[in-house]
């Protein structure tokens, strides 16, 4: 009885918290909800303040196809495919290369490797815009512009990811590594047959965050993917929003397609996404 009373008293004291949270959550979710409704309404309806779902999605989708063809000479499917390809390739290479490095830095660590790691961390402080021009010239010189290589080369080895794997490798059971060595397993097999399976959850978190970042990348792709046929979704969106008259229904349909993959990842793999964000700072 007293327990129940206590509980309701606690809940009553939490009322301001609930009100605050409801307001914040409304602000957080509403623009996304609005984007979804706008994608189903005509541009006129959007600008007159309609905020419920309409029936115009298919027309907006067709408009989007036309605008995509007009601005990039490529189909929407091609642009989506580009973004998927680039982001997937970058994700696979990035987690492979960075996990190798994290494995090497943590499980074979000595004075020199620790010092080298500290130097690599400095790269975190380098702004993207500072390396933009030299890297652009490098890609241009190597004739890699508008290829998937130009997209991923600067992004497949990042101090953040190496740090994430290095920190998480601290939980790696060293004893079984010793046992495997006694059994004559070479070092590279230890990585493939033991480290990779044991570190599954770190790989998942790293993959989610890398894919999100690559999918959302904007400045670098805009610099190097100069051929319209190599365009990414983010670049297509910019094209849709330029011009004197913006068709808001079509624009939000574009935003919708651009957001589907990241929203799916968010809802299905939210735990891994959160781990990926905070991953390096345990």
């Amino acid at each position, binding site marked *: 009885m007293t327990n129940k009373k206590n509980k309701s008293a606690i*809940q009553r004291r*939490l009322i301001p*918290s*609930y009100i605050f*949270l409801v307001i914040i*959550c409304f*602000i*957080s*979710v509403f*623009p*996304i909800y*609005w*984007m979804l409704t706008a994608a189903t309404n005509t541009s006129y309806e959007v*600008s007159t*303040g309609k*905020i419920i779902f309409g029936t115009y999605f298919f027309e907006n989708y067709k408009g989007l196809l036309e605008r995509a063809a007009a601005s990039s000479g490529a189909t929407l499917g091609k642009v989506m495919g580009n973004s998927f390809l680039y982001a997937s390739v970058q994700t696979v290479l990035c987690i492979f*290369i960075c996990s*190798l*490095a994290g494995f*090497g830095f943590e499980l*074979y*660590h*000595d004075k020199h*490797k620790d010092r*080298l790691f500290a130097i690599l961390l400095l*790269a975190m*402080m*380098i*702004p993207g*815009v*500072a390396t*933009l021009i*030299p*890297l652009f*010239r*490098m890609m241009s010189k190597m004739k890699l512009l508008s290829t998937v290589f130009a997209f991923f*080369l600067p992004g*497949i*080895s990042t101090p953040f990811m190496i740090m994430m794997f290095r920190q998480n490798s601290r939980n790696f059971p060293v004893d079984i590594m010793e046992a495997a060595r006694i059994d004559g397993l070479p*070092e590279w097999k230890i990585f493939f047959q033991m480290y990779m399976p044991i570190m599954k959850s770190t790989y998942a978190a790293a993959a989610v965050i890398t894919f999100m970042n690559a*999918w*959302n990348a904007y*400045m670098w792709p805009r*610099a190097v993917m100069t051929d319209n046929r190599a365009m990414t979704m*983010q670049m297509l*969106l910019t094209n*849709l*929003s330029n011009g004197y008259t*913006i068709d*808001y229904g079509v624009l*939000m349909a574009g935003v919708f397609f*651009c*957001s589907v993959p*990241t929203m799916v*990842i*968010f809802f299905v793999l*939210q735990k891994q996404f*959160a781990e990926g964000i*905070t991953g390096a*700072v345990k």
Partner: protein
Amino acid sequence: MNKSRSIQRKQQRAGWFFLAPATLLIFVMSFWPMIQAFIMSLQTGSAANMKWQEPLFKNYLRVQKDQLFQLSMRNTFMYLLIEVPIMLILAILLAQILNNKDLKFRGAFRTMVFMPCAISLVSYALIFKSLFATQGLINTVLMNLGLISENINWLGTTSTARAVIIIGLIWRWTGYNMVFYLAGLQNIEYSVYEAAKIDGANGWKTFWYITVPLLKPTIVMTAIMSINGTLQLFDESVNLTNGGPANTSMTMSHYIWNQSLGQGVANFGYASALSFIIFIMVGILAFISLKVGDTRD
């Protein structure tokens, strides 16, 4: 004895082998371009034909007279000074509230606050651009509430265009930072709060005297990340306001983009000098944050 040492050496070599690809890539894709950027910042000319500046630091001297760069710098710092504190305080508050075990629907609340992170920077910039358009929803709502008598040109007016960028940034990144604080709070023993409650500390007191000090390392880190990110702000400036009206909401990265690859000017030498200045700013501000974080012990 000898044999075990040679095995050890073999292992050490294996370690170097594992970290070599990543290290090489960082040197080639980050450090080397940074050195090149510095060299280029002392040069002038078009992409294919770069010559040394006379005097050597001419590009850096030019910054003093470049009104537009100074404006973009003031804008960027204004975004930084207003947005980062509001966002971080809001994020800590939310984490503190959501960390309460008595709260119901915690998971749902957390998911909703975190949800803006599922939207790309370009996408959210365009959503906000549409919401704050002259014929957009914000004006319609304000009009129907009778708060305004005619549509506000949010993105066509300097002060409101800047405000919309700041609102957008807070919207996009608060949940992101909250995740760090929630992770940080999990390392704090719940008994600390129990003890504070027994001692009669109220919500605000526990917040200021327990949560904030214990989260200090996390706060320093998120502050450094936010400063770093805000100084490099690009997507929002390009897509939300396009730097306008009349470049008054433009950020430094946007200006450098326009000077180098954006508008066909290809002013590589000067743009490199500007980007090197941002690099130095990021370094100094990160150093200051770390120092501030250290001395408060």
